[in-house]
């Protein structure tokens, strides 16, 4: 295996691990603002994954909507309710 293909696979693997890790953090956090920021990071990594899979259209839409607008809307919603999750 030549070096560029190895680097491509390595970056792809790291991005996939990051998606899984940040998605786990979204569920794990009890502070909802932290969970929202983790969701934004997950969305940004999903956008990067779309770009690696050669769908730049979807990557632009995911980066703008997922990482930008969804975060703002969720933080407004948290501002209107409670910050801590209780169970």
């Amino acid at each position, binding site marked *: 295996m030549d070096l560029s293909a190895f680097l491509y696979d390595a970056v792809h693997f790291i991005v996939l691990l990051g998606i899984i890790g940040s998605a786990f953090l979204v569920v794990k956090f009890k502070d909802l603002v932290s969970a929202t920021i983790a969701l934004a990071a997950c969305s940004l990594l999903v956008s990067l994954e779309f770009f690696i899979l050669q769908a*730049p*259209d979807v*990557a*632009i839409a995911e980066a*703008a909507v997922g990482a*930008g*607008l969804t975060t*703002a*809307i969720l933080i407004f*919603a948290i501002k209107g309710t409670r910050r801590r999750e209780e169970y």
Partner: protein
Amino acid sequence: MEEMSPIVKTITKIAFAPIFLFGSYIILHGHLTPGGGFQGGAIIGTLMALYLIAFGAVKWRKKLLSIIESMGLLVFIGTAFLGLTSGYFFFNFIGGTGFPLFGEKLQTGELIDGVFFPSNNAPLLSSGTIAVMNISVGLEVIAGLTLIIVAMGLFAFTGKEGGE
């Protein structure tokens, strides 16, 4: 709602023009490069969210935004119906005909079995109705997403559904 610190406001003022330019570029080059009306509109909608968060209480004209959203959709479906005049629904009736706006004739491309396939590095104003539809979808998405953000922000900070 309250506004944020002078640092955030200054950075927002600096970043406003480049983000707006990038969103407009994505919309206007929708037929040539990745992106299009929805993607560029979402970028400019994110810019509006940044502006709302940084500057807080600004008089947002929700009626005007609602009218812009409806106008975008009407222009889209109107362009689609205008194709009926010279062909069928969604017919590209100004592409490649020499019409002054968006109708530039294609120079580069190849002829395969009598059908002209334009190459990917076509001129900017050569797309016909596609650019018109991209711009109308872009306006619609900008107005719609800004309305969503403004409604959520007003509800979060005042606790009641905002009027004017």
